[in-house]
């Protein structure tokens, strides 16, 4: 008989972050990419002024603005990290400490930078 470990798996955490990030990016991703990457920079349908320095500074210094930025950056990163980690298996890179560190480590580093960013931008 195999002895069962009482230690809990950390898989549900990564799965939950994957699901939350997947849902948030499925709902908001297309319109965010369209607005911040195409419409506003090109002045197409929306004014370029919407992403001017004073406006974005005001948004990032606002508490709710900070939460929105963190939610999008952090959850998008963890969603992508988990999906890439699982998909590497399909291209012959089997799950191991190295691929896990590369995927989740990137998401962790990005999350820490995002936290630093919303603090460094001021209140």
């Amino acid at each position: 008989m195999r002895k069962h470990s009482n230690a809990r798996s950390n898989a549900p955490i990564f799965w939950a972050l994957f699901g939350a990030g997947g849902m948030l990016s499925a709902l908001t991703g297309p319109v965010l990419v369209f607005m911040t990457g195409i419409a506003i920079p090109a002045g197409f349908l929306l004014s370029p002024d919407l992403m001017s320095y004073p406006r974005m500074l005001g948004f990032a210094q606002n508490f709710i603005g900070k939460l929105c930025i963190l939610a999008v950056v952090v959850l998008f990163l963890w969603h992508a990290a988990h999906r890439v980690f699982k998909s590497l298996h399909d291209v012959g890179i089997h799950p191991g400490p190295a691929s896990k560190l590369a995927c989740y480590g990137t998401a962790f580093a990005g999350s820490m930078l995002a936290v630093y960013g919303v603090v460094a931008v001021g209140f």
Partner: protein
Amino acid sequence: MKDMQPDARRPYVRPMEGWWRKNPFFVRYMARELTALVVAAYAFVLLIGLLCLAQGEAAYNGWLAVLRHPVSLSLHAVGLVAMAYHTWTWFEIMPKTMPPIVVHGKRVAGHVVTAVGVAAAIGVTLVLFLAVWGIKP
């Protein structure tokens, strides 16, 4: 990767290279998984913008200038297609990834779950776009 090490018996290992290209279902599966790279890339674009914003006006305007560049606009157009494909596939597979929902003792059909999800995405898209549209200059 113990099974990948050279073996004196030289057993036959069926090559797996490009296995997914032989079946349209797996091509779609790979395309769906690849959208994760676009999601990550977009998160990094925003993260860099945030860090530039924290640096000051000059750095932030530099980031804005990059966003206005035709290469950036083209990449975002490709990203928009990939992101929309992610949205569609996310709700397409939702009936399989989510526990079954039971209403009045009957399991909600998969296509209903997908339709509700896509409708929610369209609703969020419209609300966000109109909210930004309505910001006074």
